[in-house]
């Protein structure tokens, strides 16, 4: 609806002849941006497809293409599949818990007037500024004392410290954009505020909730410090920790090929998500303003 592309396109159509030459620097700039963003990732993908013997080649295409690095990653002794599974559990649980709690809070912050509302908002934004490492030290001591080291909850709970404020923030911005007339109409028709929320707002807010879920999932999936601190057993490692501790055939050779393959594997699901929902993610990121 508020599509700025149409506006700019309209203004350039007035001078069709000059537009291509005038826009040449823009196209060069676009090319530079794409290369800047994609080249390192491309290098990861290319390196992951080289044979171990060709790993130091600098050609732009792998020849011959080999999947031996992927075979090495999937080798049960490496335990990377298990690590991916752990990541799914930790990031998935954190996302679901954060969203369920955040939806109601965000609705209240966006729509209801109550005492200390500004204080609550300031408090929530302030918690997202706390250095995670400061929370990790006492929690490590506490979790050691109650035997929570090497458990999922030891990773999920601290992750809520950044996932929850982020979710509340994004959803509040989203609820604010929805016209208040929607609920007012529903309430005139006899709904209570609670019913208006459940039957009218929530279904309409589904895209915003979904976008927030993706953003929170991506951020939690990337979490490294908590997972590194709270777990010392290989079987409980998440993917980011596992990839940083990859071991090769001998401990003196870094297995770059399989590291790259693991990097591709843990990134590709996110990239697919991002590509499918890019419009919404960009809108969500810019309305939330956080992260």
């Amino acid at each position, binding site marked *: 609806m508020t599509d700025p592309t149409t506006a700019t396109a309209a203004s350039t159509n007035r001078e069709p002849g000059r537009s291509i030459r005038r826009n040449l620097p*823009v196209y060069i700039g676009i090319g530079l*941006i794409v290369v800047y963003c*994609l080249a390192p990732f491309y290098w990861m993908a290319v390196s992951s497809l080289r044979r171990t013997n060709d790993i130091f080649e600098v050609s732009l295409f792998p020849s011959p293409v080999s999947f031996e690095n992927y075979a090495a990653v999937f080798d049960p002794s490496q335990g990377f599949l298990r690590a991916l599974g752990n990541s799914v559990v930790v990031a998935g649980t954190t996302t679901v818990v954060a969203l369920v709690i955040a939806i109601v809070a965000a609705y209240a912050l966006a729509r209801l007037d109550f005492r200390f509302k500004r204080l609550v908002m300031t408090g929530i934004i302030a918690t997202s500024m706390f250095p995670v490492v400061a929370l990790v030290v006492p929690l490590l001591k506490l979790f050691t004392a109650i035997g929570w080291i090497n458990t999922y909850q030891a990773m999920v709970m601290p992750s809520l410290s950044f996932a929850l404020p982020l979710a509340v923030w994004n959803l509040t911005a989203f609820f604010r954009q929805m016209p208040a007339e929607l609920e007012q109409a529903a309430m005139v028709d006899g709904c209570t505020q609670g019913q208006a929320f459940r039957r009218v707002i929530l279904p309409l807010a589904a895209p915003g909730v979904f976008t927030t879920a993706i953003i929170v999932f991506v951020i939690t999936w990337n979490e490294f410090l908590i997972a590194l601190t709270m777990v010392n057993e290989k079987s409980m490692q998440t993917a980011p920790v596992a990839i*940083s501790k990859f071991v090769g055939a001998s401990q003196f050779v870094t297995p770059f090929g399989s590291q790259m393959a693991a990097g591709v594997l843990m990134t590709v699901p996110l990239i697919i998500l991002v590509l499918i929902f890019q419009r919404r993610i960009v809108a969500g990121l810019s309305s939330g303003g956080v992260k």
Partner: protein
Amino acid sequence: MTATHAPPEPGRTRPRARVTGMSPGRLGALLVSPTILVLGLVVAYPMLAALRQSMYGEPGLVNGFVSDEEPYIGLENYTSALFGPSAERFWNAFYNTSFFTVTTVLLETVIGVAMALIMHRAMRGRAMVRASILIPWAIPTAASAVLWGWIFYPDGVANAILPGAPILWTTEGFQAQAAVIIAEVWKTAPFIGLLTLAGLQVIPDEVYEAAKMDGATAWRRFWHVTLPLVKPALLVAVLFRLLDAIRMFDLPYILIGPRKDSVETLSMLVHDEATANLDYGAAAAYAVLLFLYVFAVVFAFVGILGADILGDRAALRRMPVRRRRLLARGGKP
């Protein structure tokens, strides 16, 4: 009388009556309470525990007896970090953190704004650029650190492209800092670009046309029109990047490694003290100092530059602009 008291579905009316009976104030408090409870548990409690912990030392010999109790030592952890035996390591980490924060955020902002300006002028291919710009954002920092470790390997592609003698990027020294900065900027500049682009898109074209008519050069239009108008969006993006950079941990930890003087940040120092040395008191003291540093930066940023983190001032400002824009477009034939 009986008719008004006979609702069609009695089961449904009772909760309705109760909810409508609740004032918005109480409903609001009820709805935000789970969030406050969880944040209290995972943020406020650990923070207070860290404050308390920072006043305790390591368990050890007390009056000749081995003790499991951590002795209360007051502010000794702090004085040791600031002026005492740990001062050198602390101030080195403080310097590294500040250096990384200033350089990366500065570079990210310049590159990000440039990217946004280019994307804003692109008519075609915007979807493709937006997709590619999201990829560095989506790559987990751990994966990107491993990737850059491979690029900066002595026999890696960075040295193959660069002329001259190969650089040992991941060894102690300025080159290690440069490697961290390059990898960090790569991952986060597109993010600033994305948020700035969103800010650019709500500026009506009429503003530029008016400036052009008044004879403003491209540079003056950027400096006096574009920049002030994207400032609210940009400031918030930069503030959150600043906070992230001050807490930097993953990238130098994986790319260069722990306990390296040239890249050790405050977060790495806290982590090392807590997990390798098991000195929770000292770790907590460093963490509190890091927190104070973050707090000071936020305070300065909000106070001096007027960053609008709560977003309500920006919302107020954005509304009329969007409406003006709609009106302007509606008025066009």
